[in-house]
């Protein structure tokens, strides 16, 4: 075990490790932070070595999980140090502690720029690495031209140029305008002629990003990518150091194939033929070997090839080969390959017409639904959902229902939703559909959203033939000892409307039904939402702008706001609250923004606000069914829109 070469640091680390508990550790850390703070204040007294040591200690403390809210300045200031050891520490600690949103990173831009345009190659590398890892928009604007110069300069060594390629990639991601497309189409093609495989790999990553936004400009790169693939596939001119367990530069192969997936077609017949030869060889020639790493590398290439084949919309024969391969993969013991097999099979569904061939593997996929590995179960669920059609819907939905009883909570919501959608889409008959939804509510009521049971009620309302059956089923469920509150609500509604159709059956007289519902109803926890006017006031106070007139329904409220969170930028968000005047316990909130994480955060924020405001004194009475049906709730809108919201 090599010692760190910085005695003070090693001693500190040992001290921390020797702390018998968290409390002691915190004390030791606080002591050290206090010490560092004092030493930093008196900067004159600090030697470069000491500065380095303290900055590393800071990073170590930060990694332990403590807040290190000072000392960023010192780390950044080390970047301007004249000598390499200190400069290196400054660059590395800065890029680990800070990110592009830290304001005073800006202070370093000039120093960084000087290092990039200067003559010292090692300094150039440090600077390019920092900017490539944490550079933001401002760095992009100031430094992109200099980085581009380095990348295309033949005077620069491969070491610098490969860093410049990835640095430019980052800057491009932060601000696409820094790459002037007109200039770059030729340059990019030239870069692909590079002999050094390190530089080529980095350049290929850059190409992938450029092409993903604009393939038109980079057509000339297409044949070059194919040539590179050919060369690698034949193991031509590949130095030993770039061969990974016998596979020539697998990462470069994968990147090249990824780049090709952004071009809509391969027009030139020669290029197309060469490409398909390479792909065919990969598809047919990738064997399973004992060495795990060689296996992973060769299969990484294989799966990317599969994706490319799917994208190129190859002939039916090649596609069937792919499905056959995938069929093999989903049944192997190795879990990684099984996972990827399922994932890629799902992708195949979306691309091409191989439904029938995939259905042959249904039994194996259903087995995967019960795999001990949750990652594999998720993929299996997605695949089953995608391959469901009229012929296998009953089987698949019934499997999902069965699985629902034993599945873990993380999956139940998704399972219920998917089962409900499939049941509705492919129901062989409506009474089966009603059965399925009621079973869903029974097994996983907590995870069945209101939209789902609104819908089944809607169907029953619109189909007279269904009504006695639905009422009967509802009555049966009420006899169970423990039933979910959603089931009580559904049964209350169905029986309230249609129990008269059952009147002659045992246990179904109006009096009996009334009493059993009354007995079950106290389990219904309802919290009355505040009246719409109060809610509008609340929204205004939260600076959510209420927009009257956007929704003509007087029971709904629509508001808009600009919202942002730590991880997203400010976006316009729309919020709709729908209330149901016939059922005062129901309220539905829908939020739309451009970002699902943001939508979730805004929803949580609003829910919090609604919960903490005291509920107005007029709490609604629980809904009791009447002997004669009343009109159905008017808040149910078109079924299509209801589920559109869900999906």
């Amino acid at each position, binding site marked *: *075990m*090599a010692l*760190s070469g910085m005695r003070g640091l090693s001693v500190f*680390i040992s001290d921390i*490790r020797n702390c018998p508990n968290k409390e002691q550790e915190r004390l030791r850390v606080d002591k050290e932070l206090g010490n560092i703070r004092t030493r930093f204040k008196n900067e004159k007294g600090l030697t470069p070595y000491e500065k380095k040591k303290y900055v*590393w200690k800071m990073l*170590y403390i930060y*990694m*332990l*999980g403590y*807040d290190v809210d000072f000392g960023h300045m010192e780390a950044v200031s080390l970047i301007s140090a004249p000598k390499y*050891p200190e400069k*290196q520490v400054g660059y*590395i600690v800065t*890029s*680990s502690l800070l990110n*592009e949103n830290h304001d005073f990173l800006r202070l370093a831009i000039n120093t960084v720029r000087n290092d990039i345009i200067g003559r010292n190659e*090692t300094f150039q590398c440090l600077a*390019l*690495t920092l900017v*490539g*890892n*944490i550079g*933001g928009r401002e760095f992009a604007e100031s430094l992109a031209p200099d980085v581009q110069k380095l990348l295309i300069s033949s005077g620069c060594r491969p*070491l610098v140029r*490969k*860093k410049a390629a*990835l*640095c430019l*990639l*980052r800057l491009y991601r932060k601000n696409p305008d820094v790459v002037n497309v007109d200039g770059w189409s030729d340059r990019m093609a030239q870069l692909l002629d590079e002999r050094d*495989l*390190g530089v080529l*790999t*980095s350049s290929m*990553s850059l190409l992938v990003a450029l092409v993903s936004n604009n393939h038109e400009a980079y057509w000339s790169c297409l044949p070059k990518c194919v040539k590179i693939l050919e060369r690698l596939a034949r193991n031509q001119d590949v*130095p030993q*150091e*770039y061969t*990974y367990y016998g596979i020539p*530069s*697998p*990462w*470069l192969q994968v990147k090249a194939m990824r780049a090709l997936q952004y071009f809509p077609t391969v027009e030139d017949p020669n290029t197309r033929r060469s490409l398909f030869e390479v792909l065919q060889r990969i598809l047919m020639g990738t064997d399973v070997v004992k060495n795990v790493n060689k296996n*992973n590398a060769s299969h*990484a290439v294989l*799966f*990317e090839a599969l994706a490319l084949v799917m994208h190129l919309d190859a002939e039916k024969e090649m596609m069937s080969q792919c499905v056959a391969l995938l069929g093999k993969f989903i049944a192997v013991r190795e*879990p*990684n390959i099984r*996972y*990827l097999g399922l994932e890629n099979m799902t992708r195949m569904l979306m691309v091409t017409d191989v439904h029938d061939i995939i259905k042959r593997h249904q039994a194996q996929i259903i087995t995967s639904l019960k795999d*001990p*590995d949750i*990652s594999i179960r*998720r993929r299996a669920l997605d695949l089953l959902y995608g391959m469901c059609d009229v012929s296998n819907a009953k089987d698949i939905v019934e499997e999902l229902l069965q699985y629902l009883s034993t599945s873990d909570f993380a999956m139940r919501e998704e399972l219920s939703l998917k089962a409900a959608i499939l049941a509705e889409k492919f129901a062989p008959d409506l009474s089966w559909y009603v059965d399925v939804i009621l079973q869903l509510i029974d097994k996983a009521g907590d995870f069945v959203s209101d939209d789902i049971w609104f819908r089944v009620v809607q169907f029953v309302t619109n189909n007279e033939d269904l009504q006695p059956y639905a009422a009967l089923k509802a009555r049966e469920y009420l006899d169970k000892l423990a039933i979910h509150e959603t089931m009580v609500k559904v049964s209350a509604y169905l029986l309230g409307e249609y129990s008269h159709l059952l009147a002659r059956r045992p246990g179904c007289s109006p009096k009996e039904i009334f009493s059993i519902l009354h007995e079950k109803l106290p389990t219904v926890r309802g919290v009355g939402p505040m009246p719409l006017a109060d809610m509008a006031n609340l929204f205004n106070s939260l600076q959510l702008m209420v927009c009257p007139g956007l929704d003509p329904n007087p029971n709904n409220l629509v508001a808009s706001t600009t919202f942002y969170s*730590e*991880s997203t930028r400010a976006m316009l968000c729309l919020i709709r609250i729908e209330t149901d005047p016939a059922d005062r316990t129901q309220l539905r909130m829908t939020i739309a923004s451009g970002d*699902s*994480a943001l939508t979730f955060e805004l929803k949580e924020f609003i829910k919090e606000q609604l919960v903490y405001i005291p509920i107005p004194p007029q709490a609604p009475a629980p809904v009791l069914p009447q002997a004669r049906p009343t009109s159905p709730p008017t808040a149910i809108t078109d079924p299509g829109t209801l589920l559109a919201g869900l999906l």
Partner: protein
Amino acid sequence: MIHFVVLISRQGKVRLTKWYSPYSQKERAKVIRELSGMILTRGPKLCNFVEWRGYKVVYKRYASLYFCMCIDQDDNELEILEIIHHYVEILDRYFGSVCELDLIFNFHKAYYILDEILIAGELQESSKKTVARLVAAQDSLVEAAKEQASSISNMIAQATK
């Protein structure tokens, strides 16, 4: 792209973190907590991929350390798994049969090496030989500077005796 790299011990101690997308300090702590919970509890016979918040996390356990890399949904999982192995092999070569203790006391070296393998969350260099050469060159630069500094201080010490 790779959004972040995290090395956690079996007890949940963080040995290295590198972030290629902007996460605030609070978010970083949250991420580490969530991932530790998910990954450390996974059995040995399960696959090396977990789905998390719309991303994928590829992880591999080497002795007492879990190496985790977070990627986008449509990235190539096996490719990343081998990037992890590539990093581990390089660490192994550098330290001579690396163990967790090496990474604890020499975490700064682990960062230097990582910076030669990944930039902007993409693979920078797939030749172990080249990476080893570069890191050795950096080490000798630091050594040279130390010697120079100590020889200067010797001269001063002599001159001021």
